[in-house]
């Protein structure tokens, strides 16, 4: 039995924030957990899927986040507890359903867990979905440490049930992907029975149909008021510091840990008060009044948008007759950066400035010595496709096909590992990069610009999971409107970017059960698109097929490039070729190739040996895909079947 499910009440475990959220859901007795993979959210569903059998719960990787929330909401409507988990982008995908779901309300506890990415460490954006709580008038919870990540997930499910509406729980990368030791609570043994009561009157919240109706807007607000009343006494809102500090620091989420550390680093525990809020929308007014009355100077520490700052200011303005005029510091004052993630040093800087303290983390002498000896000595480590990655081979051929075509054609990008093809590792092939499925939508649009004189061929890239998530409607649009472009489906048999979760195209479910695989090739053909399939490791055939498709101007075409991700368990388990460089044949700098293999192809497993002035295989890194043997014009790279 796994610790996550079987770990006994009162025992201590070192868990990732996402595992703490998963445990909290189990302690609340959830029956259903759904999600779509996205860093930093994926481990919540991964871990729950691993214990689904023993815990008797249902988990799935849904086709996209909107469907994930709908599947979880159905459980709630049938009086079961459920969570839907996604990254910040996903909340946008689910947004249309959220807007309507809050109007019908919920029955069994339902929590939407959004794991967000301040500082865009693993995202193209640092979207802040806290505003969705305000937009949709639902409660927002933000755990401030790992224990709270568990406890607040459990409490969020209870809260949702108490008020009869959705609750948003927001984590961030430094909480979700950080780890801490936490104490487990009990996991209930009894499982709820599912039943959807729909026979009652139209507006009966307990036994009627679940209908999103505008006339229920007032009910939504009444539910929110109930939540605020509960927030007033919540143990997740804490104050540490003197009764009357010189400065009040208000914060939430991972910023609580940075703030506590900054106060300790500066040694101002007896001068600065720390108000850590766990219930950040709506802010409980009585609790805020009490704390805002402590002093006149207030620093708000948070990441991305000034969400907390704005909401505190609104309350302070309303309360001004009672609590007096306050001076606010934070993002608007420039003390806290308006973009990017925070860390203890940034909070130290803000606090040091406001408290008139200077702080030197290391003696100047050491700093100067370090600057002289090591600053900028470590070579840059830009992002690159893995050794043996099929995308490197695919983009090699796509890039060459576009060059050979010669009409200044281009490729629209999408979301996945292959987004890295905006960089030299993918030969800078992708010329647009936006949201899930947008490459196909944009290509569909570019292709309709012929009547305005655009004569460049248009390509779009899309991964297999992304195809199911959001590209199918764009492809349908293109077929119907005879938009002339080629969609290149990079089918690497999994949601590789986020840790190889299954998707509807695979014969396996999140819970490792057999599942009917949805055939993407058949879908494309059924839409009426011309479809070709190649192995991207066959460089010549891939390039030739793509050039042929680009010359075919009859609407939308699809090229499926099928080769498993180099990190898939199957490929990791086998090395097809032993690679070596024949030093007699590699003439190094004297070859006319201008070091094509190392300067351009850029696989981490094929390095340049300065001493020998020749290419060399790094046998620790090389996975033996064999592709580099086909790019060497001098046939100096040899592959031997193992």
């Amino acid at each position: 039995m796994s610790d996550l499910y079987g770990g006994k009440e009162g025992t201590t475990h070192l868990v990732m924030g996402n595992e703490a959220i998963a445990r909290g859901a189990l302690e609340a007795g959830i029956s259903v957990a759904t999600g779509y993979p996205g860093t930093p959210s994926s481990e919540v569903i991964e871990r729950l899927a691993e214990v689904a059998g023993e815990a008797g719960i249902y988990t799935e990787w849904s086709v996209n986040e909107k469907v994930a929330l709908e599947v979880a909401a159905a459980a709630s409507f049938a009086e079961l507890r459920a969570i839907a988990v996604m990254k910040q982008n996903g909340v946008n995908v689910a947004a249309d359903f959220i807007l309507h779901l809050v109007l019908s309300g919920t029955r069994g506890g339902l929590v939407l867990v959004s794991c967000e990415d301040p500082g865009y460490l693993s995202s193209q954006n640092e979207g802040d979905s806290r505003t969705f709580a305000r937009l949709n008038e639902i409660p927002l919870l933000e755990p401030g440490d790992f224990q709270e990540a568990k406890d607040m997930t459990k409490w969020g499910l209870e809260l949702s049930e108490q008020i009869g509406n959705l609750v948003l729980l927001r984590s961030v990368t430094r909480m979700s992907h950080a780890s801490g030791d936490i104490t487990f609570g009990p996991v209930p043994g009894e499982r709820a029975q599912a039943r959807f009561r729909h026979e009652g009157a139209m507006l009966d919240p307990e036994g009627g149909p679940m209908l999103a109706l505008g006339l229920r807007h007032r009910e939504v607000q009444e539910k929110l008021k109930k939540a605020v009343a509960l927030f007033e006494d919540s143990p997740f809102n804490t104050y540490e510091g003197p009764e009357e500090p010189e400065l009040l620091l208000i914060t939430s989420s991972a910023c609580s840990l940075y703030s506590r550390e900054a106060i300790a680093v500066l040694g101002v525990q007896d001068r600065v008060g720390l108000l850590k809020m766990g219930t950040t929308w709506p802010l409980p007014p009585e609790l805020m009044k009490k704390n805002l009355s402590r002093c006149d100077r207030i620093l708000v520490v948070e990441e991305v948008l000034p969400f907390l700052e704005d909401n505190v200011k609104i309350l302070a303005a309303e309360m001004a007759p009672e609590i007096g005029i306050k001076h606010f510091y934070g993002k608007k004052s420039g003390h806290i950066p308006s973009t990017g993630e925070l860390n203890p040093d940034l909070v130290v800087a803000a606090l040091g400035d406001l408290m008139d303290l200077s702080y030197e983390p290391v003696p100047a002498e050491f700093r100067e010595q370090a600057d002289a000896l090591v600053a900028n000595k470590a070579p840059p480590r830009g992002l690159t496709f893995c050794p043996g990655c099929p995308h490197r081979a695919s983009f090699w051929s796509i890039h060459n096909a576009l060059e050979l075509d010669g009409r200044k054609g281009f490729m629209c990008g999408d979301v996945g590992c292959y987004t890295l093809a905006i960089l030299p590792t993918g030969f800078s092939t992708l010329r647009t990069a936006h949201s899930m499925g947008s490459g196909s939508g944009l290509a569909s649009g570019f292709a309709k610009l012929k009547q305005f004189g655009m004569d460049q061929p248009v390509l779009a890239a899309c991964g297999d999971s992304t195809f199911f998530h959001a590209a199918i409607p764009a492809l349908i649009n293109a077929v119907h409107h005879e938009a002339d472009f080629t969609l290149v489906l990079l089918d690497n048999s999994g949601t590789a970017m986020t840790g190889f979760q299954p998707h509807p195209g695979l014969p396996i479910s999140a819970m490792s059960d057999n599942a009917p695989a949805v055939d993407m090739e058949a879908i494309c053909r059924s839409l009426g698109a011309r479809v070709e399939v190649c192995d991207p490791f066959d460089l010549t055939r891939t390039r030739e097929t793509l050039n042929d498709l680009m010359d075919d101007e009859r609407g939308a075409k699809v090229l499926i490039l099928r080769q498993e991700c180099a990190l898939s368990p199957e490929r990791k388990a086998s090395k097809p070729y032993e690679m070596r460089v024949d030093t007699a044949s590699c003439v190094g700098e004297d070859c006319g190739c201008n070091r094509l293999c190392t300067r351009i192809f850029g696989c981490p497993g094929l390095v340049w040996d300065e001493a020998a002035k020749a290419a060399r295989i790094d046998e620790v890194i090389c996975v033996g895909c064999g592709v580099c043997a086909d790019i060497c014009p001098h046939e100096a790279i040899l592959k031997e079947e193992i």
Partner: protein
Amino acid sequence: MGAARLARDPYNLIITGVGGQGNVMASRVLGNMMVKDGYHVTIGETFGASQRGGSVMSHLRISKEGSWSPQIPRGQADFIIALEPSEALRLLSVFGNPRVRVLSNTRPIHSVAVIAGDAKYPSMNEIQSSIQELSADAWFVAATDEAVKMGNPIYGNIIILGALAGTGAFPMDRESFKTVISETFPEDRVDANVRAYDLGMEMVSRSEKAHDGVTLG
């Protein structure tokens, strides 16, 4: 093994390397060992870029008090462990201080910028002398090369953990390691990992520890 107490609270340790070297696994194993020994542990990781050739870091905060920030403040590392040697240089200017100790692997992984000829990888001599200059103690271990001899470069991270125990700079209990490994890996992989750990310990203790660092392997 070493002192049973931490030199400082929180004790700040960074494990750095390149995606795919088992950085996260090493931090998890060490963290779990310390939790078993009654400490509070907070670990901050860089993910996402991890398997795509980027630099990766795990920040460990080990404390008798409670949770700390998952990001160590600048200049506050007590120990830096580098699974890739140039990554130690990258961190020393940000997190180093006169008390910092360094344990480094000796096998370089060339970044694509180096492979393409756009950047230069410093010589091992330069790396070792810079690290020695900037640290209170330094150890260099040929962990990957030994792991390759064991049959799989992935054992490099566990050899390094064993070497860390061997330095005595840090209270690590071999029994806790065995327990954690048994809980982490399938049974058939436990022995090899314990062998790797012992090998790392041996590699450090076999050689006389010099104040200004030693090269082993």
